[in-house]
């Protein structure tokens, strides 16, 4: 890893081929992930990674600016792969370093700061790559070994949450909501997340999710419905009792779930052998044999009609506890 990083100038900075640069960064990202995975690192590696981060941050910022001014230019689309690799590098590095800030060269006059800013900027100028990175992040963070990482670094779910609130791209919003819902399914992460959330923000988010579930297209409903449950639970914890509004919200939520269950029932195409007929035949055979061992009991009702001719043992007739 150190050898690889030491060749950063040759392979990355001096190289003009975006594909090579992207592949190089992807290799480093694999190493960074492994380091998070094994919870091992060396100060020297962290220092080199941090130094490269500064440069990458500045370069990424330049890409973002170019994208903003040349939104429909074909030239920028060729760098999409490189942009994705650079953004992913910064995100992974943030998690690895456990720090919140990356500063850029002062001469640029702009700062791309924390994880939140990286994701927000990416979401505004390159939503497709933002969704791809969120998906990869979600897949990585849902691994059980990363649970401790998220628990210790609460800015990860908070950044994704703020992205889901502030981004103007609907695809990014849906993806961020899905990833956040997956992260919040862990108890400790959920507790830490909601502990830091103020009541007003939670209430507004819940209302927004409710609107999305009721009026949004199916893809957006799917991402919002999972989060809505967590926020509904949080509302109830804050209130400590069931009031009219919560009851109404809960009833609406259950109704939405029911509709989704009914409408989303996929039809798998696989054959099932109908075992029921076989089971019933077996029961009939056994009952026929058992009947021979009992004697018939005829009973009258008060109107004198025969109402039951059933095979029950006489001992059961009197001693059955009802």
């Amino acid at each position: 890893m150190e050898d690889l990083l030491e060749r950063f100038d040759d392979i990355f900075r001096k190289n003009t081929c975006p594909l090579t640069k992207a592949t190089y960064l992807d290799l480093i990202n694999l190493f960074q992930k492994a380091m998070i995975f094994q919870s091992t690192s060396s100060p020297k590696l962290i220092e080199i990674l941090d130094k490269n981060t500064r440069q990458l941050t500045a370069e990424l910022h330049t890409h973002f600016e170019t994208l903003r001014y040349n939104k429909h230019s074909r030239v920028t689309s060729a760098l999409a792969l490189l942009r994705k690799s650079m953004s992913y590098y910064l995100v992974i590095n943030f998690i690895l370093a456990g720090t919140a800030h990356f500063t850029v060269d002062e001469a640029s006059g702009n700062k791309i700061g924390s994880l939140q800013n990286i994701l927000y900027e990416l979401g505004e100028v390159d939503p497709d790559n933002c969704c791809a990175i969120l998906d990869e992040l979600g897949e990585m963070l849902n691994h059980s070994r990363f649970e401790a990482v998220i628990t210790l670094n609460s800015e990860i779910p908070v950044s994704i949450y703020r992205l889901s609130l502030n981004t103007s791209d609907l695809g990014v919003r849906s993806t961020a909501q899905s990833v956040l819902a997956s992260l919040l399914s862990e108890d400790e992460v959920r507790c830490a997340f909601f502990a830091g959330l103020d009541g007003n923000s939670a209430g507004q988010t819940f209302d927004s999710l409710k609107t999305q579930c009721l009026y949004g297209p199916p893809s957006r409903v799917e991402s919002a419905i999972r989060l809505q449950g967590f926020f509904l639970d949080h509302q109830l914890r804050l209130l400590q009792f069931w009031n009219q509004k919560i009851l109404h919200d809960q009833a609406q939520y259950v109704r939405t779930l029911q509709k989704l269950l009914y409408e989303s029932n996929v039809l798998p195409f696989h054959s099932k052998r109908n075992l029921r007929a076989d089971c019933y035949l077996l029961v009939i055979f056994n009952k026929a044999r058992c009947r021979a061992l009992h004697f018939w009991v005829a009973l009258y009702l008060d109107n004198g009609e025969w109402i039951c001719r059933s095979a029950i043992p006489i001992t059961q007739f009197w001693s059955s506890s009802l």
Partner: protein
Amino acid sequence: MENGSVVVPSPLLSFGLVVYDILNDDDDEIRELAARIATRVIMGKRYRRGMRDAIPLLASQRLAEYLARVYPDSSELCDGAMRRLMGCDEETAPFKISFQETLARAQKEDTTLFVQEKQNLFIDGAREIVIWSRVLKSVSSKAIPRNLAQNFTKWVMDGISLLAATGKVEIDGPLGWTSKAEVFTLGMRVIYGAEVLLNWRMRSKKVSVRGSEIRRKLRDFADTGRSGIHELWIDRVEAVLAYSVLVRLALVKEKIEMVVNES
């Protein structure tokens, strides 16, 4: 929650019913997930991570028993149980269509070239009838809406009469009119419905028909069935009648014992 002495808000009942529906989902992974949720619902505060979950079939049965135990006074549970026994969704009125029309639709043969696959291949209508009839027998009398009881009574009584009449006219056999899955399930629905009515009649006057009337009709149906209606229907009718008579005899025995003790 589990001993009934702690008050559990009824909004959680609707969640419980949703979990039950998910336990019958067509996808086995979803059913496995729902089984884990059902364990949490049933165990409540006693739940600990790592607790073993029941298989989905057992989990659904236990969840239904749990709901019946914890919410016996809930008319929402009674309504939900009735819908599931009748095989209706939330938007369909259970007794809107007459039994005659329901039977006609069930008996109608599908002559289309390509059979349309059912939306859910997992759910077993007969099993649902058994589970939810038990729930309906567990609800308290105050949970039973009067309208529901009246409509249900009419539907069941019409059902017994029409099935008996059909049995007299049509010949049954291995591929007879009762072998069709929809017809068989409908018949089971009527028979278990009669059992529920007998149970309700013992506890409430909301069922307008006398228990003896129900028993008489069942007897007629069973006698007609001797000429060849589905053996399982007849077995079930005989079991319902036997149990009903035993209940009556137990009451008589109780009264006799009271009189004897007093003297």
